[in-house]
């Protein structure tokens, strides 16, 4: 008979290791909460733009041209009399949408390629990673210009352009931990169980590399937002009169001395978005490295 181990003490900490590590890391680095909160606030404002915006963003008003910030127009107005606060809210939709969608697409496509390359190795690895290298060798802006020139300026095309720059980056950071993990005993156990490669990659490898990837995902979302702003600034992005932060800055340049608020506020918006994501990413980074290793020890 197997001896019953009635007095076995199970170590009491419970719950998903990822969640615990996250909360632990966020508590350690309090600014991460700030980042999270700030980003959530921006997201809510962006999603709820139709609700929060006091004015129609493309509504022109000759009477209210170039007005400085006031109670009525929080960010002032531009040369067409449009309310800049409302425009900023709608611009947030573009920026955040582009940022998040590009990163998600890049993560799924690039991450998959990286896992496949790392898991199968050899020829598959070489082919995939060389293609990634070629893609990486294009500076982001050049890539954007080429794609927009070929496909035409529009929101989907901006997303495609930025996704294209992110795919090889995600592939890289997905590949390295995959190579490390596939040698671990629990992956060997999966082979011994006869699991299919797809199952092993999806259910066993991906959950264990997700943390590292999500760190970079949040940091690169900040990048994506900046790149989108850059595209809009250069006129490569979404066409006016749809408001974008980058476009608003560009329009404000012509009047920089008379109406500095036209460029200033969209710039601050970009700053807040990028900063919140960086703080968030730093918090996630802490969650990934030392903590998970510590909680591993029974």
């Amino acid at each position: 008979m197997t001896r019953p181990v009635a007095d076995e003490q199970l170590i009491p900490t419970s719950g998903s290791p990822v969640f615990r590590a996250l909360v632990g890391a966020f508590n350690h680095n309090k600014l991460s909460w700030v980042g999270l909160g700030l980003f959530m606030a921006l997201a809510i404002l962006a999603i709820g733009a139709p609700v929060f915006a006091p004015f129609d963003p493309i509504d022109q008003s000759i009477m209210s041209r170039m007005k400085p910030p006031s109670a009525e127009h929080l960010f002032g107005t531009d040369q067409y009399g449009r309310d800049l606060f409302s425009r900023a809210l709608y611009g947030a939709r573009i920026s955040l949408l582009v940022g998040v969608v590009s990163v998600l697409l890049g993560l799924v496509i690039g991450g998959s390629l990286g896992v496949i390359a790392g898991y199968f190795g050899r020829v598959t690895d070489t082919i995939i990673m060389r293609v990634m290298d070629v893609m990486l060798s294009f500076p982001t802006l050049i890539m954007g210009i080429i794609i927009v020139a070929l496909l035409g300026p529009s929101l989907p095309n901006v997303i495609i352009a930025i996704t294209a720059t992110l795919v090889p980056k995600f592939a890289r950071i997905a590949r390295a931990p995959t190579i490390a993990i596939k040698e671990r005993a629990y992956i060997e156990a999966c082979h011994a169980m006869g699991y299919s490669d797809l199952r092993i990659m999806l259910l066993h490898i991906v959950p264990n590399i997700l943390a590292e990837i999500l760190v970079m995902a949040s940091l690169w979302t900040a990048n994506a937002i900046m790149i989108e702003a850059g595209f809009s600034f250069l006129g490569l992005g979404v066409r006016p009169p749809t408001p974008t932060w980058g476009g608003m800055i560009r329009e404000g340049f012509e009047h920089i001395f008379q109406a500095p608020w036209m460029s200033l506020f969209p710039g601050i918006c970009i700053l807040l978005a990028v900063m919140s994501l960086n703080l968030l990413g730093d918090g996630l980074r802490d969650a990934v490295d030392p903590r998970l290793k510590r909680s591993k020890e029974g």
Partner: protein
Amino acid sequence: MADPDTAPAPLLRVEGLTTEFRLGGEWHSAIRNLSFSVDRNETLAIVGESGCGKSITVMSLMRLLPEHGCRLTADQVNLNGQDLMGLSEDEMRSLRGNRMAMIFQEPMTALNPVLTIGLQIAEPLMFHRGMTLAEARPAVIELLDQVGIPSAAKRVDDYPHEFSGGMRQRVVIAMALACDPDLLLADEPTTALDVTIQAQVLALLADLKAAKGMGMILITHSLGVVAAVADRVAVMYAGDMVETAGVEELFANPVHPYTEALIRSIPRPDRDIEAVVPITGTVPSIDRMPVGCRFAARCSYAEARCTESAPPLTPVGEGSSHVAACWVRAGGQTA
């Protein structure tokens, strides 16, 4: 044995050593009220399982524990007549590697991969004895020879990765012995080595200890290693020292239930055993230590008083040096 009244003072005398760590805002003791001694030319083995505090004990002796979140108290920690507890960090530094030296378990990571072994062995000589590298070189080659590295003069400029695991551990031993320490602390020095290499290194340590008249504290989880090299043994469980005795006495007559259970649960290469008897249950975690004897929950001899207060180390027989901390099996007289 020498007459206790005129016997020379032990090389190392520790009394009431307690080390506490701060966890979640509260202080918990990792080792509690330890008292033991080591003589010259004697090997004291501290044996116990993971989490019992044996490594923390020697780290406490060396005062190599973090400054924050850690608290060391002792009635006495006396090395060669000198009290270590009152020393400043600078004074401790001049002792480490000099009068007392330590070797660790992992020879792979104990050596700096980018420096030659010659330089690493010379370093304690340079730091403590003020030698230059050139002056230290002959001493280094001599040391390599003593620890059994063949072609020492040629290998002194090699890098760690050019040595096998057993050889690396010998290099580490050479580093530890460079300044002729009085006391050697060895924390699981052979656990990561193959069996045949382990035998070589243990024999080497025994030879060197005898040749230099050092005292040695050997930490191990293996009772086999204890039986092979120890003169005296201290058994630790959950931060307490639960039994101390001469090695033959301990194995012939284990008094503490944990010691007895441990010996009974080990298979042997030299004889057939009908069944190894496992110890049920697990070691309590540091922040949930029970009141009273910490082994009571797993002990087949436990009585009511065992969970009320922790038993002190008491001699097993009249005036015996064999002591055990057990209400049931080691009476109630204090030492």
